């Protein structure tokens, strides 16, 4: 948050598309290098389909770049390369686990499916950028988004299409593909919250009564949003999806805080969270179990126990074994960790690529969050600010909850690791999130018409500018 951006009227951003292209090439080296390293580590040779795979990956990434160059020339240049690097690395790790799963005769083929989902995610990314020329038009869909989010969250509870996997009923299965509608609902909820809050923020902040130390807003201002939030949260609790419940709660709280600029909301929210966690601990066996597993996983590991701590203990063993630089692809035993390619992919990376890669990935995630919040700061309209903040914070919370859970910083709750884990819904939703952030940042960084220099050095930027206004 530099001083320059505090006064966006005076600072003129440059498109920086060249920088993005350069960073994308670096990101491609990460993805392809990892793929080659998997081949070398597992089968002592560069994979035979290296060129094809490299071509496909490069094509997808370059396609993104070209679309951004034309329809969002002022978009943030860092986000796309970071995401490309993470997605490429994730593919390589999933492919590496596939090889071992094939050897062990277990379910495999996750990598090719993931590649298809990535293509779909990128298609949606491009579509979002092409269709949505101004993020403010989303504001029209405030209530539609909210309703859609609730419907999506309800879908897994429907009798035919809903499926329960690993104790959580958060999946739908259509035509052989399983999908987590909650991932899309996440984006829709951000839009709904932002649209509502930007209209009612003054009323929420100023009108109301003071009860004890807190200024409570009027019921008619808070009511709809509280209702929406309670419904979505209720559904999640009912579906036993702790991770998403936590995520949505945090999201709601943060957006309310940003919209009203009242830190009191954080205090109220924090108290509610503590109370909720305590109540959940008392009321639900599965919440209590998560806590116990977190406090002493070794008590639930090995013969003669329920063995529920296996995931956590094997993760700790694996990451410790990886140490500073990791065992290298093919030299670790990530297959000992259940769900090593989805929720626990971070443990696989820690084991084979070491603390070095772990730090790198956390930094990349940090960079995404930072660019998202920077976009929010620079953004000129309240709606854009709220959407960008919401998306960035969702991302940050999700990364914290899943990585913190896997590395035993906090109790484990099931969430996917953005862009790394297998799982189409999450991947697609995250690509859309990035598209939205790019769209908002393009709007935010675009020079004001008056500030446009007469002779623009970037003709395409200028043309786009004209088209868009």
């Amino acid at each position, binding site marked *: 948050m530099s001083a320059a951006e505090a006064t966006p009227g005076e600072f003129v951003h440059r498109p920086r598309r060249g920088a993005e292209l350069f960073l994308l090439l670096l990101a491609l080296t990460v993805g392809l290098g990892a793929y080659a390293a998997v081949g070398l580590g597992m089968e002592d040779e560069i994979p035979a389909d290296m060129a094809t795979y490299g071509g496909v990956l490069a094509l997808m990434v370059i396609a993104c770049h070209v679309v951004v160059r034309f329809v969002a020339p002022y978009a943030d240049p860092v986000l796309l390369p970071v995401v490309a690097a993470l997605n490429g690395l994730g593919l390589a790790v999933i492919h590496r686990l596939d090889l071992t799963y094939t050897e062990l005769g277990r379910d495999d083929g996750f990598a090719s499916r993931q590649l298809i989902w990535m293509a779909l995610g990128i298609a949606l990314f491009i579509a979002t950028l092409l269709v949505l020329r101004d993020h403010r038009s989303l504001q029209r869909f405030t209530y539609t988004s909210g309703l859609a989010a609730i419907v999506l969250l309800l879908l897994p509870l429907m009798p035919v299409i809903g499926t329960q996997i690993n104790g959580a009923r958060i999946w739908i299965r259509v035509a052989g593909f399983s999908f987590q509608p909650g991932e899309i609902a996440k984006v829709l909820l951000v839009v709904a919250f932002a649209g509502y809050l930007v209209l009612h923020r003054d009323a929420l902040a100023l009108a109301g009564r003071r009860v004890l130390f807190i200024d409570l807003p009027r019921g008619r201002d808070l009511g709809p949003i509280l209702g929406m939030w309670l419904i979505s949260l209720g559904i999640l609790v009912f579906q036993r999806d702790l991770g998403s419940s936590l995520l949505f709660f945090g999201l709601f709280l943060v957006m309310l805080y940003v919209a009203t600029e009242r830190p009191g909301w954080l205090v109220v929210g924090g108290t509610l969270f503590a109370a909720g966690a305590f109540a959940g601990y008392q009321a639900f066996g599965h919440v209590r179990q998560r806590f116990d597993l977190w406090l002493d996983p070794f008590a639930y590991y090995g013969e003669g126990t329920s063995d529920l701590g296996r995931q956590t203990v094997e993760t700790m063993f694996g990451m*410790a074994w990886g*140490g500073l630089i990791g065992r290298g692809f093919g030299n670790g035993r990530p297959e000992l960790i259940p769900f090593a390619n989805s929720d626990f992919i971070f443990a696989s990376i820690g084991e084979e690529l070491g603390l070095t890669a772990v730090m790198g990935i956390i930094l990349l995630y940090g960079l995404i969050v930072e660019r998202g*919040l920077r976009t*929010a700061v620079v953004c000129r309209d309240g709606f854009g*600010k709220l959407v960008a*903040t919401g998306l960035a914070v969702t991302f940050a919370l999700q990364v914290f909850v899943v990585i913190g859970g896997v590395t035993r910083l906090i109790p484990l709750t099931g969430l996917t690791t953005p862009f790394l884990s297998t799982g189409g819904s999450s991947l697609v939703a995250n690509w859309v999130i990035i598209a939205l952030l790019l769209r908002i940042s393009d709007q935010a960084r675009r020079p004001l018409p008056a500030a446009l220099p007469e002779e623009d050095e970037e003709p395409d930027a200028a043309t786009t500018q004209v088209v868009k206004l």
Partner: protein
Amino acid sequence: MNRPIRTLAVFCMLLFGALMINATVLQYVNAGDLNANPSNRRVVDATFSRDRGAILVGREPVARSVPSDDEFEYQREYPAPFKYAHVTGYFSYFSQTGIERTYNPLLSGDDSRLFVTRLVDMVSNSEPVGGSVELTLDDGAQTAAFEGLEALGEGTEGAVVAIEPDTGRILAMVSSPSFDTNRFADHDFGALNDTFEELDAREDEPLLNRTIQTTLPPGSTFKIVTAAAALESGAYSSADDLVPGGSSYQLPLTDISIENGGRDCGTDTIPFTQAMEQSCNTTFLALADELGVEAMQEQAEAFGFNSEYLDDLPLQAESRYPGDLDEPQTALSGIGQSDVAATPLQMAMVSAGIANDGTVMKPYLVEELRSPDLDVLERTDPSDLSRAVDPDTAEVITEMMVNTVAEGTGTPGAIPGIDVAGKTGTAESAPGRPPYAWFTSFAPADDPQVAVAVLVEAAGQPAEIAGGTLGGPIARAVSEAVIDR
């Protein structure tokens, strides 16, 4: 709205900082503890899969790792499983024994002396390779000992140890019954478990290394120690000195009388050498009583009793000479009964001490440790364990032991053309159980190359258990194998 966003940015930074610190704690700070956790399959499997170093006798491996096709890349193999079982021990997925256990860090490649090799491995990203251990054992002596015990028939329980007197190198170490170490190297853990349960349940305890883990009353072989104490006391100085004799001896403070089993032990006094040749109980009971418990214990400890001295194998039992014996017990200790108990290794060390002019050398099994590149990392230097007796005393006892083999009870241990110094022993055990047969000797008497101790607890073939007849031929075969090499 920018102020809350900035606050959120700081909050997110704290979250990510916490993740980084936590990852560092997990992968760096706590990594050592987690890697040392015995239920950590990664570490156990990786160690188990390594190209483990060989255990060598001479140039021949008695334990080696060969490439295997299954998930563990190497298979441990023992070319002569039964013969060397108790020395090499076994290397199973769950545990190790013997040299496999004591030298595990070196064999598995984790030893700090392999630091440079490991550094190279790390840089070249190859798995560590273990160093090798060369034993002091002599294949000829070991074979003679193993076959000697085997010749006593199925069900024989016994042990043989041979030592090079002037160095302490252990030349043979065999315990019977033995077991197939290859069965423990099985990668089929079900079968491995069955093997362990089967062998562990057997009453003749094949997993026990009797040479160092069984302590039994040494019987008449302990008369060497009593004789040494008597000579060291200054009361006697030559083989011809007269010592108490007689056909029976009444234990002090009791009405128990002990005789000599019909051997000629004179009436009042007899020459020291005759008492030794005929293994006269009456003489050594009287001598022990005369010397007292303190002098006897001091002498026993000078030979190594009441201490541990073998560093190369785990779970060694201490030979015992208790300090709190009353008078009748002290007298009985003179003939190796009462609460006196010794391992076969200890009795071999008694002979070796006499053979080496009174100095007992510290026994050892490992000659050399080598890196995977065959560089010598460490070579064991012989060292004195203790000064048991004066050279003069040693000379007198040697003379008496030579006479024992030449003319007395030890004739089955004689080797034609070579002077052998030896002593038999037949120790009483619990009533109703057959006695134990002991034999200890060294040869050649004038230039000792090998000291042997043989213990036979139970022989397969029905034969009279007496020290000389069972143990003598085995000691002789082992000595010949060493002298002829």
